[in-house]
């Protein structure tokens, strides 16, 4: 019987972090996988700059929050003894910035989180970033999905 559970090896992965609930999941999964293949991780957070500001403007309050997001990821990686670099970007389009950064650092994998929206019956929030990266990234893309509350409870929902 062929082995179907082996994770594909990667050399360098870019982790797209947005400060949301899936960040922790993305970092943990990436660290576990990176340990096995001794891969490098690059955590990327993109500050979306609207057209009222120049791309190079310092957006008040954003950089501290962004640093906190990246520092948290770095701390987690350090505890798991995985090499991680962090990159803070400003861009008009978050998805394009993640893909371009992954190409620039010669990553062979992008890992993103997909949060679950509980309101109005519950649904995954695909937004614009995930579809863009899926359609445009020249490398492999993994989406780490937030657990669906109904499925997470034993005995309820699909398992």
């Amino acid at each position, binding site marked *: 019987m062929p082995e179907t559970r082996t994770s594909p090896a990667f050399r360098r992965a870019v982790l797209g972090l947005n400060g949301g609930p899936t960040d922790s999941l993305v970092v943990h999964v990436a660290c576990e996988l990176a340990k096995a293949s001794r891969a490098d991780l690059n955590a990327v957070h993109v500050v979306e700059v609207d057209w009222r500001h120049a791309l*190079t403007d310092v957006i008040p309050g954003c950089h501290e929050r962004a*640093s906190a997001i990246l*520092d948290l990821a770095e701390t987690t990686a350090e505890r798991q003894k995985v090499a991680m670099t962090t990159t803070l970007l*400003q*861009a008009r389009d978050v998805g*394009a910035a993640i893909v371009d950064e992954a190409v620039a650092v010669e990553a062979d994998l992008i890992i993103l989180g997909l949060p679950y929206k509980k309101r109005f019956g519950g649904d995954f929030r695909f937004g614009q970033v995930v579809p863009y990266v899926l359609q445009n990234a020249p490398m492999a893309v993994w989406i780490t999905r937030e657990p669906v509350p109904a499925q997470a409870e034993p005995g309820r929902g699909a398992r």
Partner: protein
Amino acid sequence: MSGNPQQLRGRKPGDRRVRIERPQSAYFRHTGPGILTARAKTTEPTTRLGRGMAGVRNVLVGRPLASEQEMEERLPKKKALAIFSSDAISSSAYASEEILRVLVLAGPAAVLLSVEVSLGIVVLLTTVAISYRQVVFAYPQGGGSYSVARANFGQLPSLVAASALLIDYVMTVAVSTSSAVEQITSAIPELAPQAVLIAVAAIALITLGNLRGLREAGNIFALPTYLFVGSALLMIALGAFRVLVLGEGSPPPDPLPGAPSPLQPITLILLLRAFAGGAVALTGTEAIATGVRAFKPPESRNAATTLVIMAGLLGVLFMGMTFLASSYGVVPIDEPVKQTIPAQVAGIVYGANSIGFYLFQAFTALILFLAANTSFNAFPRLSAILAQDGYMPRQLSFRGDRLAYSRGIVALGVIAAALIVLFGGSTHALIPLYAVGVFIDFTISQSGMVKHWLETREPGWRRRMSINAFGCVLTAIVAVVVVLAKAPVSLLVIVLIPVLVTMMLFIHRHYARVASEQEVPSDVVVERSPRRRRVIIPIPGLTRAVEQAITVGRTIADDVTAVHITDDLDEAERVRYQFEHQVPGVRLVLVESPYRQLVGPFVSYVDVMDPDPETLTFVILPEYLVRHWWERYLHNQVAERLRHELIGRPNTVIISLPYRRDH
């Protein structure tokens, strides 16, 4: 917050991104809302000399460890046994001898009683070990007898227990090191003149090993401990087989020259003295209870298991050694060449001059050296707990780069080395001071546990309390016997304990007074002060440093006065001219000093001019920041003297404002 943005093109036309540099990320990390954690880079030295010193320190002590790495530094049971038990286990090498030295005075037949006396000591050891096993669970924060006494009896008895322990830890280092050096100088007599030097060097090495941190100390000290335990257990097993199965053995030995008649009756006093002599085997038993927090979780369970293993090993080694010595009729020989009991027993069991004999001797010498290591773990921990409670200088509770209580380790090393130098490295001179404190400590600890059981009445409290009460009476008797048997030198410890207690109380009172002075009541809201502010700047003339001081002064208050003290009125007029043209809005006061003094007239000016007690005076001292050490002697001498004179003046803030040449 961020550095210069760097614009980058994307793969598609119009896609742009800017990479934001985060230079601060090398120094600080966000760990929570409004919380920054300093990284290793913030503590890295910036000067060439500092970097060189840090490099040397890294080679000697190791690279600094972060607090979060503490768990990695905690000890597993195997290493903890080596670190905390070397003192207790090594005492099996000389405890039997201490008994035989006393009993042989009563004649050859009395030597046979050594087994019974040893059995009594093993009962005492078992009682003490069970008691401390209970302490480990009841007081998992560590501290041993001090914690027990503090919780049950309050301040004074706990400080007596702590003082007794501290003295004994110092004595353990001094006695075991000098004893080990004596083993070496017995084998190589040419080294005897350097005995003190060897002992001090050995203490320095052990200090260095401990400064490298717990785990590395465990790595260094584990092997010799296990080699000694292994070779001693093998010797006892082989010896016991030959005595019990093959029927080997010897009749009681001949009396020592000068000993009383062989028919002299064995008095109770003699038996008690033999018991007190052998009781040195128990020194170091409490070390595990002091250092519970050094163990990997679950700390209490692991510490308790290690304590039981240690007591078991010590009991077997001590009993086995006494049994073999008694069976083979071995007594201590001092002349013409000193022959210790373990050496004689090893000579019989392994064969004199055999490899087994020499290996056992080497391992025994090594474990005696390392017996000091137990104290190097227990003393700094107890000092740290005392410092946290405000009874010792606070510096003792700070952990060094390697998460070890570096200051306590260094303090112990220095005191023990000083004692060795003071006593000329003689074990004989040091030993009467040894083991006195430990039994006082055992007694206080066990009586504390009796009170603990009476108050908590946990399940099985009656049985547990009985064990502690029995141990308390037994150790109290031994304490009295040890003090009397080793008098008058032992009385020095009895004097030293109150001295230490007084010192600790003095420190505690000082910290309590300062804390009371510094306390901000909870109902006080710190608001902007409505008090009037004025700035006074002493100036030698109009310089860049003065210009900077005036700029800073203007941000503090509108009332800025520059004071120029001079004995040259022509020069003063030139300064006034400069000020009027170049520094508008700042009042310049020229003070003529016919006695050519600078500091006195300036301080008086601050004191008497506008002495409104409601006014807050800021004195800004412009200084020139020197680039080389020798420049310090050419600049800022007046500023230094002014600072010295003004510091502590009421309602006055002194600001040193260095000016850099490249600004």
